[in-house]
């Protein structure tokens, strides 16, 4: 088996093809974006944000304290009446402007996203940026059509939305949060993740240039305590994307407050390959499912369920494919696997992988050199995994795939659903009736059949069970930002 892998691995090296960083003009330090202007934090605190692929500092950013949160929420509150009073068609134009500017400055944003987050430039360029712009464009069009989305239910904005986003898709998550909130007539206070503040701050500049009324969008950089202060602040709605653990804490913190809440949390998705699946296509889907964005994806296909007759052949193909994945400089246009987002995340991945080995699963990693500086983890497969292993139950949020097998479709359903999560699932088979049968039985909010990790602004996204509640994207993504009357009988 290992001979076969050696023969098929690429016999040449790729020449470096780095994207230029020249396009990105970083300031030495950034303030908080409150009331339409960058202001110094009252907390007096700041921190250094780095490039995780080199550990080089990129900029100093402010760390918002409780007073800063209060100021931002106040600014959002003051802006709320005027923003709601704008005709939807006019609100829409601001969002269209943002969408257009994101398209115009896509290269700059993509480079910055890869610099600050460690993701491969081909992903930030081809996925994050186009989708972020598309989200603003899609929701812009809803702003003056809300009555058609919810006929007879007199949709009204909620007021001020507090929005807390993760570090895996920094700009895209900002667009998922801001676009529907603003289209629905809310104002927002957005808190980007601690490790990836820079594209959000560049977005703040875009928002300034688009001349959004001051206070409609406020952006507060900071850490977990900033997010906690935002949850406790007098906002009308909290939208959170992040870990299930923090999501539960937010649920507790908002209990009894009447604040509206949507949570998009962790996942442990099953990617299920049947014996009749187009195997080469499935291998690509499995690789995309778990190694896309270094596996820093809540809906990652982190559990591979393979029907027994094709287990050996699929495993061989996967191992061969892993040998050809190119790990390294996120700014290199050939890179498949970029840097792990932070040292803390790398340590989490390493700890869980060590647990997997201790529990008896067998680890496979391709031989690829890791850069000397920065945070890196080889794309990894575990075989011999059972349902009770921690690597089959807990979200690793890294490039680590746990492989299990099954015999019957019923067994696949049972294993796939044997998780407290329920964000996504993948099904690979040529049989159409089986796809629909399986899709019906998956306890998951998104089901990909013969594909994986596809996203679109028109397509609702969100989880079952402990993967959270509420949907983002599509018509369904508007409802969490609106007060709706019960319809007439």
């Amino acid at each position: 088996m290992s001979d076969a892998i050696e023969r098929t691995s690429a016999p040449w090296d790729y020449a470096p093809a780095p994207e230029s960083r020249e396009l990105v003009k970083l300031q030495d330090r950034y303030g908080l974006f409150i009331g339409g202007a960058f202001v110094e934090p009252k907390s007096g605190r700041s921190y250094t944000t780095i490039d995780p692929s080199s550990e080089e500092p990129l900029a100093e950013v402010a760390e918002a304290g409780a007073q800063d949160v209060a100021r931002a929420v106040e600014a959002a509150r003051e802006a709320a009446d005027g923003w709601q009073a704008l005709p939807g068609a006019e609100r829409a134009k601001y969002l269209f402007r943002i969408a257009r500017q994101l398209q115009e400055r896509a290269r700059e944003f993509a480079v910055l996203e890869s610099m600050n987050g460690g993701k491969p430039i081909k992903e930030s360029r081809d996925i994050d940026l186009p989708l972020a712009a598309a989200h603003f464009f899609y929701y812009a069009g809803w702003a003056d059509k809300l009555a058609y989305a919810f006929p007879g239910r007199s949709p009204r904005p909620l007021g001020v939305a507090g929005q807390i986003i993760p570090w895996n898709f920094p700009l895209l998550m900002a667009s998922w949060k801001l676009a529907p909130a603003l289209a629905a007539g809310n104002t927002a206070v957005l808190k980007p993740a601690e490790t990836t503040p820079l594209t959000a701050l560049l977005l703040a500049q875009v928002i300034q240039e688009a001349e959004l009324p001051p206070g409609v969008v406020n952006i507060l950089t900071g850490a977990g305590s900033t997010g906690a202060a935002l949850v406790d602040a007098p906002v009308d709605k909290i939208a959170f994307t992040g870990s299930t653990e923090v999501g539960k804490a937010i649920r507790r913190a908002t209990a009894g407050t009447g604040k509206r809440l949507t949570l998009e949390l962790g996942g442990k998705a099953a990617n299920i390959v049947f014996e009749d699946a187009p195997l080469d296509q499935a291998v690509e889907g499995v690789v995309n499912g778990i190694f896309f964005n270094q596996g820093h994806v809540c809906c990652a296909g982190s559990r591979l369920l393979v029907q027994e007759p094709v287990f050996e052949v699929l495993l061989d193909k996967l191992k061969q494919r892993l040998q050809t994945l190119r790990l390294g400089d996120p700014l290199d246009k050939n890179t498949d696997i970029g840097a792990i987002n932070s040292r803390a995340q790398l340590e989490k991945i390493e700890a869980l992988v060590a647990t997997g080995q201790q529990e008896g699963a067998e680890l496979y990693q391709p031989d690829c050199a890791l850069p000397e500086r920065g945070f890196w983890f080889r794309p990894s497969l575990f075989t011999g995994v059972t349902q009770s292993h921690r690597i089959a139950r807990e979200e690793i949020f890294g490039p680590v795939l746990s492989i299990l097998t099954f015999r019957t479709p019923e067994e696949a359903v049972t294993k796939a659903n044997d998780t407290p999560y329920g964000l996504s699932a993948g099904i690979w088979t040529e049989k159409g009736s089986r796809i629909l049968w399986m899709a019906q039985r998956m306890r998951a909010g998104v089901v990909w059949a013969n594909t994986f990790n596809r996203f679109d602004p028109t397509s609702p996204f969100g989880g079952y069970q402990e993967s959270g509640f509420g949907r983002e994207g599509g018509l369904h993504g508007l409802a969490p930002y609106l007060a709706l009357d019960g319809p007439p009988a």
Partner: protein
Amino acid sequence: MSERVPVRRTAKLFIAGTFPRSESGRSYEVTSHDGRPLAHAAQASRKDLREAVVAARAAQSGWAAMTAYNRGQILYRVAELMEGRRGQFEAELADAGAADPVRGVSAAIDRWVWYAGWADKIAQVAGSSNPVAGPYFNFTIPEPTGVVGIVAPPDQSLLGLVSRLAPAIVSGNTAVVIASEPAPLPAVSLGEVLATSDVPAGVVNILTGRTAELVPWLAGHMDVNAIDVTGVPEDLLTEAETLAAENVKRVHRGPKTDPFDAAAQGPAEITALMEFKTVWHPMGA
């Protein structure tokens, strides 16, 4: 001739299609609004609640797998049987102090009929086909969330309960209900109707007892997917929502309007206890 002695009913729990007393052996006295003793209702325990959840979980996939048409007919059947026993319900509402028992029973029956009709329509109203920018067939459908805990409003002991229960189960959820504490008898009678309405055993489980005692156990139960807190007293709401965090329960509170009001019913009451599933499928020759 001596006068016939009427046979009294024992007010029991309704779990898994059967009528047990509380395993705890406890009961509490139910009186009419003007203080007449009416019955001793079972005072459900934590173990009863757990049994009810087990029954609801066991029934859920089968109930959801029935065709929507079939579920709609079964809900309609509940209305039929209530109509046949309306005298009993009216008497119970009168005992509970309802202003207009006849109207109350009529509205409860009509609510079953209204939601019965939604069974095979909700997916069309709440689902969507999504025009994604790529060669994919993409659609979103609503699905039942699973096992729903329902804390029925303490007042409006019949219409309030039906207004929470019918939208919860019409989509394929199963339910564990905590009945009105002061006026549990209409709920007990509803259980008897449900038991004979082709509603599969375990789809609806009704507990009578002390609300304050039962709510935290229901809200914290790890195998309950959602909780309707419409009947949770204000002083228990924070605790209920806090406990609900443990397994990320969906928390739903029904409209605060008068249950006779048209705004008290709506498809949003159904979708609040549903999940939206989006399916992507490639298109290609």
